[in-house]
């Protein structure tokens, strides 16, 4: 360490650099919105905006593009999925917080995390190969099971973890004395839960549902596989229809420039919906914090420990029974999906299929290992410094209440809410086409960096904020500068949060399919020779094996490898958190 470290100029420079890193998210959101708008202008000019929105014919042959069908399709599907998935999720969250036996709680939280971690493409595979045939057997529809019912069922399971975990958080931050007060007034436990505590967490539940809507609107690969992409409207449980996202995936592969522009415009409209949802989220009132020092939150104690004196005798008992049923159902569904994929997949796994030489006659998973690692490496190399730098600025340098910080947080949240298909489209038109990267790991890695950036910023910021101020003060008192304090004192304390964010990011990358198909392509037969090569990660490979038709067994086998990754990553997160807790105590 040289003396120059303490020169103010270096500190100022560091602060400026961190501020720029923080501003990057704002820049990224504006670039995505701006560039997609720019790329969709030709479509709005040739078709005219009004006709584009309200037209119901999409025909590349006659150059007519209208997305009204897709808007209605997306809207109805989202409505159904959120109604079903949201209800299940809220009951699951209530059960988890209030009724779950203490021993089960950790396991059940793992189940929800695992459900969140299953890749979209695996849900698609499950829907296509298990759910659709099952629905055909039960309802004997006039087609192969495509349509609203299958999509709603799959999508509601997919959005369930998002809604559950946010509802759970807001229920747990209800002050404990609400509960104790309700019991003291003679409520039974069920009455207290449903009449007092649940309404107290209302705004959090609403936020959760809005985030669920955002997830449903943007879901792509699973929906694309089971929606049927018909020309109809979803008036009926088994009518194949099209959504905004499935239209993009279905048609992009071969679209001529005019249709490409129309598809980007389709994505742009989707982006507008998502942005509107983000604004709506802002408008939802934040719950009153109360007095932090004198009111314990529910999460700090176990509501089950408090005796309820009246046991039964209210209408809310039915809700209590219902939440047990829902919780059991959710656990069953998860176990079933995982078992289904493993039972179908593991018998088809062999050493040769995993690591053998891959070629045109026989595609193995070896190229997918290499390309997935390359994607993870590149994305982390870009996103980790960006994200940690931004978090350092937000937590260490910015003054509290600084408007710039509010703006950055808003944009980080916005970035987190953008569906992966939009990132894919942006990566396609910006990195692949405009910057001339071509379908390549480089284009995919940068796109993925944008996708994981919000996770890294938030998680790092969170763990930085948990570092006690006394440590910083002690460091200053010993004569260390700000920069040195941050790197030598604060960051090492926050390391478990950063590690967690990296693991979560790896999970996100392993899961990703829509964004990669658009930026990395799907060349799967050879080990990529560099970052300019097209490649296929595991998720994309599942999709490709499905499309090939004669390779369903390979699709199952690849999906089971994916699930193993997901489970291992989930366990790693728990392990890191456990380490972090042990160190602190």
């Amino acid at each position, binding site marked *: 360490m040289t003396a120059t470290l303490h020169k103010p100029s270096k500190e100022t420079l560091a602060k400026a650099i961190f501020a720029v890193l923080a501003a990057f998210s704002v820049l990224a959101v504006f670039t995505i919105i701006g560039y997609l708008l720019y790329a969709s202008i030709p479509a709005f000019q040739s078709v005219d905006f009004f006709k584009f929105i309200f037209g119901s014919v999409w025909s590349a042959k006659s150059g007519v593009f209208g997305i009204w069908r897709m808007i209605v399709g997306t809207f109805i599907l989202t409505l159904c999925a959120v109604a079903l998935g949201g209800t299940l999720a809220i009951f699951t969250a209530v059960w988890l917080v209030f009724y779950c036996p203490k021993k089960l709680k950790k396991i059940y939280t793992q189940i929800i995390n695992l459900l969140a971690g299953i890749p979209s493409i695996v849900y698609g595979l499950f829907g296509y190969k298990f759910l659709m045939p099952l629905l*055909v057997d039960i309802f004997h529809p*006039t087609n192969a099971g495509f349509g609203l019912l299958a999509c709603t069922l799959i999508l509601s399971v997919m959005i369930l973890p998002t809604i559950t975990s946010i509802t759970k958080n807001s229920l747990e931050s209800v002050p404990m004395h609400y509960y104790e007060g309700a019991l003291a007034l003679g409520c039974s436990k069920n009455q207290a839960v449903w009449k007092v505590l649940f309404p107290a967490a209302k705004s959090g539940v609403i936020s959760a549902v809005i985030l669920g809507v955002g997830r449903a609107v943007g879901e792509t690969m699973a929906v694309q596989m089971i929606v049927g992409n018909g020309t109809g409207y979803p008036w009926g449980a088994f009518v194949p229809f099209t959504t905004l996202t499935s239209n993009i995936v279905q048609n992009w*592969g071969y679209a001529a420039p005019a249709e490409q522009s129309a598809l980007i415009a389709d994505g742009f409209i989707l982006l507008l919906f998502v942005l509107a949802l983000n604004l709506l989220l802002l408008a939802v009132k934040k719950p009153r914090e109360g007095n932090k020092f004198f009111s314990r939150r529910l999460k700090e104690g176990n509501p089950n420990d408090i005796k309820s004196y009246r046991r039964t005798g209210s209408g809310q008992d039915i809700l209590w029974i219902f939440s047990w049923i829902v919780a059991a159902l959710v656990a069953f569904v998860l176990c079933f999906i995982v078992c289904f994929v493993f039972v179908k997949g593991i018998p088809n796994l062999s050493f040769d299929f995993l690591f053998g030489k891959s070629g045109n006659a*026989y595609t193995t998973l070896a190229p997918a290992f290499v390309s997935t690692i390359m994607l993870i490496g590149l994305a982390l190399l870009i996103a980790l410094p960006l994200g940690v730098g931004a978090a350092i600025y937000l937590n260490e340098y910015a003054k509290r209440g600084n408007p710039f910080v509010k703006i950055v947080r808003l944009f980080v949240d916005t970035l987190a809410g953008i569906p992966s298909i939009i990132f894919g489209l942006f990566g396609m038109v910006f990195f692949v086409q405009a910057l001339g990267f071509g379908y390549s790991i480089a284009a995919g890695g940068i796109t993925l960096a944008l996708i994981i950036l919000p996770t890294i910023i938030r998680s790092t910021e969170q763990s930085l904020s948990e570092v006690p101020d006394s440590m910083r003060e002690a460091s200053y008192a010993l004569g260390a500068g700000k920069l040195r304090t941050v790197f030598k004192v604060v960051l090492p304390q926050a390391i478990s949060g950063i590690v967690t964010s990296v693991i979560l990011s790896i999970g996100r990358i392993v899961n990703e399919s829509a964004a990669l198909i658009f930026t990395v392509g799907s060349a799967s037969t050879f080990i990529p020779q560099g970052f300019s090569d097209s490649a296929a990660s595991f998720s994309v490979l599942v999709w490709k094996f499905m499309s090939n*038709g*004669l390779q369903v067994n390979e699709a199952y086998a690849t999906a089971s490898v994916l699930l193993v990754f997901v489970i291992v990553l989930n366990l790693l997160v728990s392990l890191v958190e456990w380490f972090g807790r042990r160190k602190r105590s």
Partner: protein
Amino acid sequence: MKKGILATLLCVAVMGVSLGAFAGCGGKSEAITVSGSSSVTPLMEVLAAEYEKTHDVRITVNMSSSGAGISDTQNGLNDFGMSSRALKTDETGITGVTLCMDGIALVVGKDCAVENVAKADVKALFENGTSIPNTTITAGIGRDASSGTRSAFDELMGIENGYHQSVATLAETGNVIEAIQGTVNSLGYISYGSLSAAVKAVTLDGIACNYDNIIGGTYALQRPFVIVLKDGKTLSRAAQGFYDYIMSDAAQEIITREGYISIK
């Protein structure tokens, strides 16, 4: 230990990146890119695998659709393209060379009792959503708008105004097979060469989709597999070698073995 974790993190990132750099340094064999029709792809992969046995090349077969294969070729994104239909007159700047012929098989689920369908009924099924009389077939499963199989099917069937809303349109041949497989109420169409035990082919107006009927011309639903070349572009030495190979007699033997109809 804290440092250890941070170092591990960086290592993961650096390892990923250097893996790419390393791979780049490895021995380079000449690369050939072929892209287009998902109907032609299985055949092209077999030919590529055969060619790679004796030549030091890396052939990447990018499966998309005939439309994509054609536009990729026009834009110079591949060495040559694959199309599962004849080129249209408005597709300029490219030349098509027929590789072989292929039939379009009408398929139903294995457990479906239907053995024969009439051409007019199939047309009505896709155009108007009318169930095929006296059968369990109530829905058609089609392909996306850029599929060569679809445009050949539509043209041969005389379907001009798109499909009825009851028809699902799927992105690839494989999706059609997967969807049809377990049903008794759906009818779809796939490449004759992609037929497998997973689905059952039905006869069209009493004529079976088989080698003799396709080559004799009695089976109505047939189309060429076309190699698409960009006008005025000279193929690379490696690509020219592969192109010469797939047009050779040896390759045509493989084509016949794979269930397609050789033109020689």
